[in-house]
């Protein structure tokens, strides 16, 4: 899927967004290794944070991905984790941010 995903973010948070997206890029790098190693606890930890922070910044679908990944990690379901991981990467690669006054 390579369609652009439009996201409206509160303009008050504009200066925080680059750092947030940088952190998510690091998450992707870490998750690549963790998934290869089957480290469910560490995957759960990253996913849990994602489920809380993504939606808080305005990236709701990404937060939902985090929630599902966390559930899958708790259940040690590697295939389900991989599905959510692909969704995470796709989302981050295709978002187009518009800053709005909320």
């Amino acid at each position, binding site marked *: 899927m390579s369609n652009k995903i439009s996201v409206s973010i509160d303009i008050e948070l504009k200066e925080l967004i680059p750092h947030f997206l940088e952190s998510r890029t690091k998450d992707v790098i870490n998750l690549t290794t963790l998934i290869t190693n089957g480290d469910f606890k560490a995957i759960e930890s990253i996913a*849990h944070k994602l489920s809380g922070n993504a939606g808080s910044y305005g990236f709701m679908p990404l937060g939902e991905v985090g929630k599902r990944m966390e559930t899958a990690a708790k259940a040690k379901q590697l295939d389900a984790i991989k599905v959510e991981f692909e969704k995470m990467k796709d989302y981050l690669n295709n978002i187009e941010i518009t800053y709005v006054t909320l």
Partner: protein
Amino acid sequence: MAGTPLVLIIDDDPDMVLLISKILTNMGLETMSASKSDKAITMLHSRVPTIITLDIDLAGANGLNFLKYTKKNKFYAHIPVIVFTAQTSPKLEAKAMEFGAFKFIKKPLVANALIMIAKQALKQAESFKLEKVFNDGEANGIVTIQGDVTEISELSFTLISSIKFSPKDKIEVTSSFFQKMDVQGCSQRVNSHLGASEGGFKTLVSFVGITDTAAKQIRSCKKKV
């Protein structure tokens, strides 16, 4: 605490700390943060915040433990603690409220909701002032709070407040009624804790060295405070 209200943000997710800090500093508040409960406790000892935001999901159940710690400590029990979680657990929410959380907010955080709750917390915190002095690792503090004085006699009175006093605490209650009865200059001593009641904790406080005149005035007073 004079000056800008201070918020202690306790969260092990740096992105959440940045976000919460941004929202609160935009409100004109000052913030400090800790990612672990033991560091948060150290920060509490050095600078008492006006309000606390706490990620209840800190590793090792440390979020709830920190909440219990603050609520059991009379120097910090008055600080409103706004609790955050990414979990959907009614049991956890009930536990947090049981341990004395001010409000419970589920992530994802909505900025306007945090602003509204922070304003409510600031209002509650308004009546408290706390100065901390450390002496050889032991916490000593002067707390100024509001309370109600009831059931006064020439020997003692009952104080209802948000603090559970113990007999080793020094206390000085000021009130316009005490001034009228001419007992304001009289020493007071915490006698005993009488249990919890609606509005807070009941403490029996004794007058020490009350004058005959003041005792007579109180005896002749026909109404309770």
